[in-house]
């Protein structure tokens, strides 16, 4: 995003630590995993060359296909729930009133908790006998079987992720909304625009770059929701919530088929990279410039 025409650029040496880390912990494992995907390895002894066997097994593994589908559903659902709510709450929290500042501070609390803690808390809260569902089942007669119902489990995960990540995206929108010049709202008010119109015609267009940035984070981040799913449902009931990263983990560290798990890992890298390239392309993220007033 910074100007590319700057004359004096810092020497390559400045980038060395970052490059070294990226190479060692980013690139090297990817290369090694790609190599492992052509082997059979139980984690015991040395990997044996298996040629394309792992890759040929991928298409016939029904759980890979359903895993991709569930992963994508999760991506879409998290985006569709988090973006509008974060935008609305963020714009609300950006207001100057003191009570809003206090309430939003409380609202940011989930940001301080680790993912594992959040997952375990919600697992307990959703317990069919002692949790919230047990209460509402008594009141309404609805099923208390949330995490164990193939149709509900994914929604439960979407909800927990929403609870966990909403504050972060809200923070982004709040900060961006505060940057919108008050003069725009004043002018609109003089022209007779109501609060709803002001929101749709000023706030939302002014926040479009933030919407894109937050969406990219949600979409790419959805590839890493692994631990929430692992701890909440373990991919169950059955295979109803077995997202692709979890399938990779179970194949690698439960079934000890490291070669096959590596093939899934490479597939994940390809999907993840493809997804972020697509988003950057479509959104014009790379051509974005400053969003301060009058600049764009």
């Amino acid at each position, binding site marked *: 995003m910074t100007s590319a025409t700057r004359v004096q650029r810092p020497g390559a040496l400045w980038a060395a630590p970052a490059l070294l880390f990226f190479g060692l912990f980013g690139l090297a494992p990817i290369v090694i995993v790609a190599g492992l995907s052509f082997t059979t390895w139980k984690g*015991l002894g040395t990997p044996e060359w298996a040629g394309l066997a792992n890759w040929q097994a991928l298409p016939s593994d029904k759980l890979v296909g359903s895993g991709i589908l569930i992963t994508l559903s999760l991506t879409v659902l998290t985006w569709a729930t988090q973006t509008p709510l974060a935008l609305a709450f963020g714009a609300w929290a950006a207001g100057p009133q003191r009570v809003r500042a206090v309430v939003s501070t409380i609202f940011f609390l989930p940001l301080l908790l680790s993912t594992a803690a959040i997952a375990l808390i919600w*697992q307990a809260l959703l317990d069919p006998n002692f949790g919230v569902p047990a209460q509402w089942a008594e009141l309404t007669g609805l099923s*208390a079987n949330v995490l*164990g119902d*193939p149709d509900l489990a994914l929604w439960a995960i979407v909800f927990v992720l929403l609870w966990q990540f909403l504050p972060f995206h809200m923070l982004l929108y709040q900060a961006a909304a505060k940057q919108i010049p008050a003069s725009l709202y004043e002018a609109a008010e003089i022209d007779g625009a109501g609060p709803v119109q002001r929101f749709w015609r000023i706030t939302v267009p002014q926040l479009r770059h933030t919407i894109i940035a937050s969406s990219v984070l949600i979409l790419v981040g959805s590839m890493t929701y*692994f631990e929430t799913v692992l701890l909440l449902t373990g991919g169950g009931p*059955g295979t109803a919530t077995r997202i692709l990263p979890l399938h990779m983990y179970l194949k690698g560290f*439960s079934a000890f088929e490291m070669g096959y798990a590596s093939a899934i890992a490479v597939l994940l890298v390809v999907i993840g990279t493809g997804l972020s390239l697509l988003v950057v392309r479509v959104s014009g993220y790379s051509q974005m410039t400053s969003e301060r007033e009058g600049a764009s």
Partner: protein
Amino acid sequence: MRRITRPHMLGSALVALALGLTTACGTAGPGTEEDAAGVEVWVVEDATVNQVVQTAVEAYSESAGIEGELVTYANDAYKQRIQVALGSPEAPDVFFNWGGGNLAEYVNAKQVVDLTDALESNPEFRDAFLPSVLDVAKIDDRYYGVPMQGVLPVVLFYNKKIFDEVGVEPPTTYDELLKLVDTFKKEGITPIVLPGAQAWTELMWLEYLVDRVGGADVFQAIADGEEGAWKDPAVIKALEMCQELVERGAFGNNFSSLTSDNGSASTVLASGKGAMYLMGTWELSNQIENNPDFVADGHLGFTAFPALEDGEGDPKAIVGNPSNYFSVNADSAHIKESIDFLVQHMASEEYVEDLIEIGHVPAVAGIEDKLAETEHAEFTTFTYQLVSEAPTFTQSWDQAIPPAAAETMLTNLQMVFLGDMTPEEFAEAMEATQ
């Protein structure tokens, strides 16, 4: 004790990541000091058992004049750690394992010392152990491990208070069990607690039902990798019985959400929301931890899995985790000393007494009198009799078959209990893993 034999997944993600990094970078991980200097023993972390083993290691190193070192790993990390370490210079001399299919993997990779000769030349040592338990470390008629802690069979727990209130007796036959299911359902009590969020608890039902329907040979054939073994009529029948139990409402409506990890399932039984609970004997320590009053008031009942009238299986046969085992690494620089350590200490009076003291039921013959003096004598004596009278002690299937097949089995079994997969489809899918 309670989860020692049951690797569960919580937290494994981090370990997996850490392991992935260390192996991926080709480094050997944190170095262990002075590799060849003494006998190194690897064991899964368990405060009380570790203490007992530590005492034995110290006693051995004193008498043999060789340094002994005990290294402990968290349960979840251990299986992955040992899998990677064996065959590398980092490997220990003596290592903890689950016997059965888990041990067979290491044996097939030629990483384990054959202990048969050592056992034969020390018959008193060999005969000290209950045969059904020792046999789990037998692979292709050779012994590769010796039991190092107590037995953990699966038994039927029940809530005595609820049984008294309803005025019924614990089931001795499967028909009685079915009648009890209907009775408790009418009372608005979940007849059987089943933490179906974890497929291995559902597996216990399949294990017992297959054993009762067709006998222990049915699973033995599966474990031996025989063709068509999964399609045995007994397996299909047992799976159908599982589905019938679900349909009958035996497990209530919410079993697929219920988990045992946070003590929730144990509390369902203790609170009287559920009447019966099929679980490993480690459930006793779960209950002592989660619901101490329930145990103290004597409301925790236990009985053997009911007999099946028209089944071929022996009603005295049991399933569960026979024990955990110590085996010797084939690449060890101290094979002789390692074997000496096992022979001198694993059945010694001190070791057995120490195990009993921490509440275990060691897999050793003739300890009735000692068990009768323990705090939970009724339960330990019951467990001991169950195991010593059992003609066969089938190891938990997920430990007995190779890990890749076990992973598929657990996933598919959950589908069977949900009604999303038929018994035939299950058998077909499992046959493909043989």
